[in-house]
């Protein structure tokens, strides 16, 4: 009799199950519009040319060793990553009140930030402090904060299914009614899964309420550069909040914009009121890191640091990022055109209005099921599609299939 005999089977993670089902599918027309990873027009993963170059540099550099990194990570990675988020000329950086923790991907950055907030944010026990995540949001947000000990995780209104856009009124309403000092998880750009971001003016309204009610801004920035093709544009919201005097966290991921998914390259940027506060915060974060993974892996961080700190490589990287963003924009434009040409009922403007990797198509669960089972097109039950899964070869098939689903399945 095993001591683990009563352990229940946990449900598989939906997005990975989707990919597993896709892999098993033998149908030659199959399309994977599920997991959020970039694909080329040949439907293949893409190792950025600048990444290949720097990987080789690292492997050939005999002066490098495999020593443990400092607990908080590679210093040049942390500082250059924070600069990417906040801007080279950020006044907060000049004031020495910005620090960072190198983490295991965006997930790890959220984890360390959440663990810190639970221990130290508002008093020394924040298990009851409400944490708000957007409705809908990345499915793992809930689990990360819950596992960090937060007991009260609530949705804030975000997606308006009727008008297929941002529910600003609902969002502002939930901000107003939230208890003061609540924590809000905000998507810095390219909202996952809706692809719908507030405009600059809308961000200003959001920031106003948050400041008035002392709500904590915890940004999740997984797509900087990837959304519009421009790093600065994609960081506007975070930088605006900093300019308004917020202390905040920004969990950065370099999985998508460097294509370094499997090296787990993340950075938790911390903006504090002053250097003294910053130092004490980092010291406590160090203690948390020590008992979680001790110190972070060096390969990915080294690669990113070298790239960000070498002008020619930095330029090449920005170019690679633009290549990816441009292909996504092209697929958006083409899908919309094809649906309009087919006369598919409904409006499809949201496909080009939305930004980043994902589009919330507005397809209902029955229509999604039809696409998966009958057409071998794999997408999330929410109707979310990964635009990167579209190619010039499959876009006609996908557009026709969506048309079929919308016209024959209610």
């Amino acid at each position, binding site marked *: 009799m095993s001591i*683990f*005999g009563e352990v229940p089977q946990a449900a598989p993670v939906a997005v990975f199950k989707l990919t597993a089902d896709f892999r098993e599918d033998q149908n030659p027309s199959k399309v994977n519009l599920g997991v959020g990873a970039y694909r080329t027009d040949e439907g293949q993963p893409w190792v950025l040319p600048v990444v290949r170059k720097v990987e080789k540099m690292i492997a050939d550099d005999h002066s490098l060793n495999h020593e443990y990194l400092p607990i908080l990570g590679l210093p040049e990675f942390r500082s250059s990553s924070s600069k990417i988020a906040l801007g080279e000329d950020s006044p907060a950086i000049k004031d020495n009140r910005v620090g960072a923790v190198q983490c295991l991907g965006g997930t790890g950055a959220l984890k360390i930030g959440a663990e810190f907030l639970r221990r130290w944010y508002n008093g020394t026990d924040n298990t009851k402090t409400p944490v708000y995540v957007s409705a809908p949001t990345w499915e793992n947000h809930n689990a*990360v904060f819950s596992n960090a000990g937060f007991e009260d995780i609530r949705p804030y209104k975000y997606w308006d299914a009727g008008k297929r856009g941002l529910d600003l009124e609902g969002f502002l309403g939930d901000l107003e009614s939230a208890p003061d000092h609540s924590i809000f998880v905000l998507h810095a750009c390219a909202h996952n899964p809706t692809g719908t971001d507030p405009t600059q003016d809308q961000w200003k309204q959001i920031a106003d309420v948050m400041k008035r009610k002392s709500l904590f801004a915890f940004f999740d920035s997984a797509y900087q550069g990837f959304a519009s093709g421009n790093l600065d544009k994609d960081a506007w919201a975070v930088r605006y909040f900093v300019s308004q005097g917020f202390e905040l966290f920004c969990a950065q991921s370099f999985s998508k914009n460097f294509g370094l998914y499997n090296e*787990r390259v993340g950075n938790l940027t911390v903006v504090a009121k002053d250097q003294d506060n910053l130092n004490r915060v980092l010291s406590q974060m160090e203690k948390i890191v020590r008992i979680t993974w*001790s110190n972070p892996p060096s390969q990915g961080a080294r690669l990113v640091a070298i790239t960000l700190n070498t002008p020619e490589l930095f330029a090449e990287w920005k170019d690679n990022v633009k290549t990816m963003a441009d292909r996504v924009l092209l697929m958006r434009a083409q899908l919309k055109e094809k649906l309009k040409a087919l006369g598919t009922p409904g409006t499809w403007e949201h496909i080009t209005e939305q930004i980043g990797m994902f589009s919330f198509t507005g397809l209902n669960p029955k229509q999604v099921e039809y696409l998966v089972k009958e057409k071998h097109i794999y997408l999330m039950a929410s109707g979310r599609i990964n635009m990167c899964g579209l190619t010039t070869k499959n876009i006609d098939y996908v557009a026709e299939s969506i048309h079929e689903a919308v016209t024959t399945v209610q």
Partner: protein
Amino acid sequence: MQMNSEFRERQPIGVKNLSVALTRHRLECRQDRTDFLKHGHTTWLPLVRKIKQQISTDPTLITEYPHILGIPEFTRRATQLALGKDSPAIVESRVFGIQTVGCTGAVCLGAELLRSCYCSSSSWSGPILLSSPCDDSLAGTFKAAGIEDVQYYRYWDAESNGVCVENMVHDLENAPEQCVVVLFASGHRPTGAELSQEDWKRVAEVMKRQLFAFFLMSAQGLCSGSLEQDAWPVRHCVSLGLELLCAQSFSHNFGLYGERVGHLLCVLKQNLLAVQSQAEKLVQTLWSCPPMEGARVVATVLNLIPSFTSALVCLGKEPPLFKKITFSFSITQCNSQQVDFLVQKKHIYLLPNGCLNVSAINSRNLDYVAESIHQALSSKL
């Protein structure tokens, strides 16, 4: 955000590798300081460098998200390394492995898994038994996972300058049933002191009595020079039909400290898939999926075991000074005043508990270190 801080620029004392703690040491300018910096580099296994170069130029290797539980080839090989290819647990499919972020990551994940799955309870909170002494971050890792009840079993005996297995067995025999016991299969930190196989047999007998073993194996192959011998305690427990967890590190035996290559082995009697699914859920909340580079290197090398074994034997050479050490760490018997003397007056940096990293000693500093320790132990301080 108001709190007190002990934050300083340098590393905290509890760090694993002495050469990292030498950051402070670099600020000193004495000419006759022990020159760890010039000669005390960590060793690259030439094989590791070659494989890294191959990886960097392999056009077929992509950077996609790996499986949540890690590279299958890595977990397969790491499992075989720990248990032996013909282990009954492997043959009977009663074992699964998870690639983790270093040994710390393995312990962290194991702690979370125990808290959520152990004893059919959704929130088991202890007790967990650690050795006395042990690495100071261990208790913190378990407590952070929600296992508050941390107790200690006697391990190191200062009087006899070794492990007192009588005390250890006595404490285990008197532990509450269904207690989880952390055992050290190779490279006990901080003492470096090991149990003999006969001792392990006695411990295993006690463990059969409803205690659960969580092994830490941080330096397989580097203690005795034999991969099999160093893993013997784990394999013996498996042969007795015990369920267990084992956290493995590939930092020391591959010199891949900075790549964070760890592995959590789970040996069960049944219900494997359910426990595996719960582990996947937990990994999602910690790091989503593990980093690839280091694990790729290890997986490649483990496919070439014969050359690796001989490379390990080279690394495992120890200076003749300490007879009782098995791997890097050893207790010097120095008390806190003596440790202070060594640090302040002799510029030899060791941990406050008198434990030092033997692999930082080399032919150039050996005499100086030996004389200094002799001075510390024999002078009236």
